[in-house]
């Protein structure tokens, strides 16, 4: 027996099978990100006073990525509309734009990750803290043997609390310069990776999972862009539905970012 409603809508529900499927999948995705956002809320309200950082992420990059994803949402919609009016050339142009925008987003995100990776907080033996981006390590630098030096572009503060709120006036006035520290003066040296504190932990987890979704969505869109031609010739209506369904996923991924941006960058 032929399975009905794979392409055309069932009259009483008003949708075709795959569209219902993707909405159900997105419901489960809401619960997945919902669980992680709940974790964010619990960690933040449970943080000791002064322990939750502010202003650690560059709002300019976050804004840029928000605009890029918003544009990709528009091109996704236009790609679907192009399919609806049966213009395959336009479809390829608009979804080509979607793919390029997605790759730009991932490129910017990678730069931000790298920026955190080379950002070090160094606890000095005199009780002060050096904080800044790695410029270079001397060839013989070894923390365990206490040999060599490390050079940061940053500043030295008396208390660790001064590093927590980068939106404060004091933090904005701080003068950053190149500092060279000998290994013998270092008590503990750690970069701003996920292990640094619960903020970087949830930042890398949430944005990492989101980036994986971007990557997955891009692969699906790329598949339709590169190999969709054969189905387009035999069954354009079904192909159009696939673009709609993958587009719904893409809009969801955009929407997650709309929540991530204020929660991580603007607080």
């Amino acid at each position, binding site marked *: *027996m032929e*399975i*009905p*409603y794979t392409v055309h809508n*069932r009259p009483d*529900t008003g*949708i*075709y*099978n795959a569209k*219902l*499927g993707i909405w*159900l*999948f997105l*419901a*489960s*995705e809401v*619960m*997945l*990100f*919902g*669980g*992680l956002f*709940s*974790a964010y809320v*619990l*960690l933040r309200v*449970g*943080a*000791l006073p002064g*322990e939750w950082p502010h202003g650690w992420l560059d709002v300019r990059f976050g804004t840029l990525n928000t605009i890029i994803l918003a544009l990709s949402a528009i091109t996704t919609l236009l790609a679907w509309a192009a399919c609806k009016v049966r213009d395959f050339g336009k479809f390829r142009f608009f979804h080509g734009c979607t793919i390029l925008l997605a790759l730009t987003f991932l490129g910017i995100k990678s730069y931000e990750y790298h920026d955190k990776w080379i950002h070090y907080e160094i606890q000095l033996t005199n009780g002060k803290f050096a904080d800044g981006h790695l410029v270079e390590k001397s060839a013989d630098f070894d923390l365990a043997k206490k040999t060599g030096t490390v050079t940061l572009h940053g500043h030295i503060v008396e208390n660790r609390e001064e590093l927590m709120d980068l939106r404060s006036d004091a933090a904005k006035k701080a003068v950053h310069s190149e500092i060279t520290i000998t290994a013998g003066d270092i008590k503990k040296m750690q970069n701003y*990776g*996920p*292990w*640094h*504190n*619960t903020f970087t*932990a*949830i930042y*890398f*987890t949430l944005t990492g*999972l989101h980036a994986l979704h971007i990557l997955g969505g891009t692969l699906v869109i790329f598949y339709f862009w590169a190999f969709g031609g054969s189905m387009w010739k035999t069954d354009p209506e079904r192909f159009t539905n696939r673009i709609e369904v993958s587009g719904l996923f893409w809009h969801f991924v955009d929407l997650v970012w709309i929540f991530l941006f204020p929660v991580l960058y603007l607080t």
Partner: protein
Amino acid sequence: MNFIATIIQLRAPGMTWMRMPFFVWAQFVTAFILLLAFPPLEAAGVLQLMDNLVHTSFFLPTGLAVGGQLADRSGGGSPLLWQHLFWFLGHPEVYVLILPAMGIVAEVIANNTRKPLWGYKSLVYAALAVGFLSFIVWAHHMYLTGMGQKIATFFQTTTMIISIPSVIILTCMFLSLWGGSIRINTPMLFALGFLPMFGIGGLTGLPLGLAAADLYLHDTYYVIAHFHYVVAPGTIFALFAGVYFWFPKMTGRKMNEFWGRVHFWCSFVFMNLVFMPMFAQGIKGMLRRMSDGAVNYSAARVPGAIDTLPGSVMELNGWIFAAAIGLGLAQIPFIVNLFWSIGHGEKVGDNPWDATTVDWQTPTPPPHGNFSQEPHIVRGPYEYNAPDHAGEFAPQSEPPVKNHDDHHAH
């Protein structure tokens, strides 16, 4: 997703929502629970993976000491977060276990009482209510975590509320027996066994759902007894009923009736001998997860400790062990019967139980696409002795007959 999409999109012509068999409703609600309750566990799994692989501190509090040394972790995390994310799956999951079981029992009962289920619509709405409420009761597993009394009060209230639809479902099934011309066979025996056993399991859950009583009963063998009554003679009995009931549809042969009854009665007796004593042990204070039931902490060892675990409570372990062996042996007739009947069981037709639902209108075993032609549904799922039909039962897809002489050939 497949189950939900199939139920919404691919119902046969005429199969309206209120003509669906209760088993399909139960699967429908179960699929929604699975869809929405598992992702938070995935989230918990991702966080746990981060803690283990890249040494984040999602579940590690500040100042954690390991082996007398301050752990080299940032801290700031919350062990309670893990429990919340885990039980947000964990509690809906128990309804994943019991709802399909209830669906099976409903089918078997309707078929063997030869009358419609009592309160079909109440059953449907109760199943939907259970599905919704199962998402807001999870923290009743966490009364002793120190999450706070106000939260405990909220969750004990929702927990009491969710018992209402569960009781409605069981009551409808009990009342369905009233006035029926009951056929006793192996599937029906397991379905009838399910009713009181699940009843015991459900009612003994109420003291656990109340925070004050749970202070005492938490982590005792009372809990073990409670949830085993729900899932062992509850879910597993229903699954046995389902296997004996649908086996002829899968193979074209019935399982052996005599050995089926041996399997039921031995399982029924030993199941109770295994789990009933655990209520007594738990009420006496015997703790789970300890090889000696925490007798170490009792007055026998610690001077001044209040009360003690009497030797008789510990001795019950020996009897439980013997009964568990008996329960295991009681499954041998089932396993042999299952495989033997595939080749040697009594040959039967497409509808050996004279059932009304469309699963019995397919060829045996059902081919790809199930039906040889698309069924058109004209009536509800349990039309036994229906007024518009001359026969003793009216399959959902059989057109109404006006002439009493040419009623359905069988």
